[in-house]
């Protein structure tokens, strides 16, 4: 049985090859997609987790930093893949002026979700404050790549290009993007900056 099947496969393959050689010019074959090294399962936010997450987020927004921190840490015990919980814990650490801890949480979030724009933005801000402008630029550009309508990212890119990297065209572009996106009260101020750049 096995032999018959093998012979059939050989015949079919031979035919395919003959057809390919005779009727089509040779092409560079497309590279094969690498196989995943290990199976990944997308995290699923259960209603219970979602509810708990929102509850913690509300506590944070209300300024209950300690309670919010506990709640996010509890959530991470239940589901360690919650990148958002790390971001929020990083924010809580920043408010406590514990920059190192904050950075660790932001990096942890980015590890869990490389497309987490909040984590990218926070890390970019840390780099801006430290004068590592080129690193910050890359992260901010990544943010706007992931979230083209990300206002804060466009704004910060505008400042970065205007004052520090002194690429005024790019600065104008991002200010304009910001202006186009925002309805904040500083919109007019930014529009004036655009004019100054002109």
């Amino acid at each position, binding site marked *: 049985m096995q032999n018959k099947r093998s012979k059939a496969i050989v015949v079919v393959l031979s035919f395919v090859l003959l057809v390919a050689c005779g009727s089509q010019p040779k092409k560079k074959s497309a590279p094969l997609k690498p196989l995943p090294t290990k199976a990944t399962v997308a*995290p699923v*936010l259960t209603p219970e*987790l*979602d509810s708990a*997450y929102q509850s913690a*987020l509300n506590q*944070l*927004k209300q300024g209950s930093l300690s309670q919010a921190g506990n709640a996010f840490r509890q959530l991470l015990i239940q589901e360690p*893949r*919650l*990148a*958002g*919980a790390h*971001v*929020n814990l990083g*924010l809580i650490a920043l408010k406590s002026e514990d920059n190192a801890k904050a950075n660790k949480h932001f990096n942890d*979030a980015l590890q*869990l*979700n490389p497309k*987490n724009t*909040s*984590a990218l*933005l*926070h890390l970019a*801000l840390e780099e*801006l*404050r430290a*004068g590592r*402008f*080129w690193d910050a630029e890359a992260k901010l550009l990544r943010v706007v790549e992931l979230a083209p309508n990300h*206002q*804060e990212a466009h*704004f*910060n890119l505008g*400042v970065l290009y*205007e*004052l*520090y*990297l*002194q*690429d005024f065209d790019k600065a104008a572009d991002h200010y304009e993007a910001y202006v186009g996106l925002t309805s904040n009260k500083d919109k007019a101020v930014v529009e*004036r900056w655009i004019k*100054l750049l002109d």
Partner: protein
Amino acid sequence: MKRWTPPDGLKLVIGKTALLLLLLISFVSLNARAENQSFVFDLAGEEKTIGDIKPSFIVYKEKEMPDVSVEYVMKRYVKLFETSTSPEVKIDALNRINNLSAKYGISSQKLTIDEVIQSQVLLESYDNIVDSGVFYERMDELLYQTAKATSFTGNQEDAIKRLKLLIGLYPNSPLIDESMFRKGEALFSIGEYAKAEAEYKKLIAFATDKNFNTRAKFKLGWSVFRQDRFDEATKHAFDVLNAYPVLKHQRSFSQLEEDDQDLVEDTLRLLSIQFSKQNGADSLIAAQQRLKNEDYAYLLHDGLFRFYLKQDRFEEAAVVAAQYAGAYNTRFDAYYMALQAIEAYRKGEFDIQTWNSKEDFVENFGVISHYWAQLNSEQQGEIKPHLAKYGQELAHLYFIRMQAQRGKDQALHQSHGQRSADFYLQLTRLTPEQPDNGEHVYLAAEALRDIGQYLDAISLYERSAYGGIDHDKSNNAAYAAILTFDEFERAGRVLEADQIERKHDNILRYADKFPEDKETPQLLSYLANTLFDDEAYDQAVEQADRVLAIAKPNSEIYYSSLLVAAHSRFKQGRYLTAEKHYAEAVAHKLSKEERGELKERLALSIYRQAEQNGDLLASAQTYLRVVDTTPGSAIVPQALFDASAQFLAASAWSDAIASLSHLQASFPKHELSEEATDKLIYAYQESEDWVSAADKLLEKSNATADQNLAAQSVFQAAEYYQKSDLELQALDSYESFTKRFPAQFDLNMEAYDRITQYYLKFDKAKHASWANKLVSYEKDNVANRNARSASLAASTAFLLAQPKIDRFKSLALTTPLKKSLANKRKLLDSAVASMQAIADYNIQEWQSAATFEIAGMYRQLANALMDSERPSSLTELQLEQYDILLEEQAYPFEEKALEVYEVNTAKVPEGLYDEWIAKSYSVLADMNPTRYAREWKEGSYAEQAF
């Protein structure tokens, strides 16, 4: 047994008692068989001589004895003999007397009858019988008997007469041969040898009885001999022997009837007498050759030998025996004759000949002779005892002779020794199974050793000691085997490798066989030492251990083996055991030098154990055991040093420090002491004892001639003091450094910087002084300038310039403005120049700082103008105009300030950023908010969980 011998060799010794018995027997026989038997004189049962005749064919039955004494009975018979007139009664009485006398051993004259009287009485009795005519029909017998009795009484003529009568009257008598023989005998006895010869020849010609024929030949020989016709006599004697063919090639004639034995013996005696009268043994040989008859060679030689011997002619006897042994050496009996020769010489006390004959015997008949090879086992067994006896005697003799020649005649010494050894070895071949062979081999070995044949002697010693059955000399042999190797060497010979090995094997065999022997420890000790010298350590240890197990602990042998055991184990790397041995050896009585040397070995044994120990701490402790056990050893400093290394490797800092400190305290001049300083420093560093580390570093800096090393040490010491908050010591060290090591540019820059930093906190004046020194030093060594030195110099110069900036900034512009402004401008120029000088160091950070300061001074000047004192005399309008003028004056400076700040911000796109640039942004934001006042927008919360 008495033999019949004629006078002068033919003497007729007539036993009177026997004759009486004969007569008595005849009488009794006559009575018993008178009717049907003739009176027969039974020659077959007759003894060799007439005198020896006894009643061998008559059995006297025991009669019950009356209850009276024998003496009494005999007395009565004697009386009967003396008183009876009847010849028959007299003969019967005589018969009984003689029987009782013989049976009870009674020889009293009163109880016996004189022999001569007996014969006379008997003759008379026979004559009476003859005269009575009772026996007339047997007159030939009566004549014969009376002739015989007459002859017995010595009246040969009468006897001859009677015999002539018998022969003439009764030619057909059965007694005719006998009578003719008796006639010849009677003639011979009276010296009528020619007549006797004729009578014997007649008898030989006519005799029908073979016995008489042979006896007649014998007597014929004698008769001829008496007439000095020796060769003829010899022939007749040979004829007698030829009558007995069984005698051919025999050693003995015992197989013959007794009478024939006597006849042969007498014949041989006749021949011996003849040979002795001629040339002895040579005549014997000549006779044999002449007669072409060697059938009786042995008997003839033996006869002649015995003849000589009987006459105490020992040498001639020995020559005869030796002649046979030599001439007939293929015959088995030759050995016996050789033995006879030895015995003859011995009896004659011919010592030299005795020894020579013994030697000949062993040589000719011994185990290595051709003769021996031809013998069967039975024959060999017969000879062996003699060979053993003489072989041993000869071996001993030559051994003694060898000893006697020792140091005298070398050739004889050698020869005797070899002979002795040969004889001893022959003995061993003779009886291989004998227990005493071992001793013989030993003695052979002794002989060979004595004459210098050492290797052969050794082989024999080995054979004696280990070759088979143990013996009394086994031990001696085994020991001698070993010693002979030494003797071999003392003789100037060199032992080959295999011989040395053999010697060692001998020692081992000795020790195995005689473990309790007093020599064993010494031998094993010697062997152990030798093996050690040969670097055969395994074997050396094995033997040394054996000695230690059996030798007395305080003995020299024990000590010697103890050293071998120790040294060998040390060589083997078995240091623990070596240590034990050395420790024990040290306890012996030793000289100071010896003890010192052993202690060093002891120390080294422990030291090597430490080296072998893979456990760092255990290894370190073992090194320290060297110090504890042998504190005076030369290796102690090294042990301390190595112990510390192990402690350091095990992070046992305090132990390492203790070891190193001990080393430096006890051996300050030792080369390792200096090296120990580095390790101490390291240990102090690791244990964070910075002060001690610093102290050692300074110590090191003073000790070393290496200026780089010294400089680094001092600098590091200063750092350690500083680290320990001993600021003054640190300052002192840094300052010392700048003085001692001006050429150490990099470290000097750091030292200056540390000093400057210190004084910055505590002494402004000194700070300025040292800051200037730093800048000047760096400038003076501009050729060595590097980023670090430039940065230090720039930062220091920046600080040094601050007072100028402060003076500029603090100088307010007052009226008259022109004057004060001029002063301020002057200060500005000076300060700006200082800042511009900093830029020359080309250190980006300090360039930014200087730029920032310059910009700040311009800005301050602008502000100072605006804040300057207004002249009090101006009106309000004038004052407004004045302000406008001031603004016009200030504006360029403000613009200048902006431009200078932007010099800093312009560096950002190039990738540069520092605190001075950041400050510049801040100032610019303040000076031009529209252009520079910007805030980052912070990030928000993460609304999404992932």
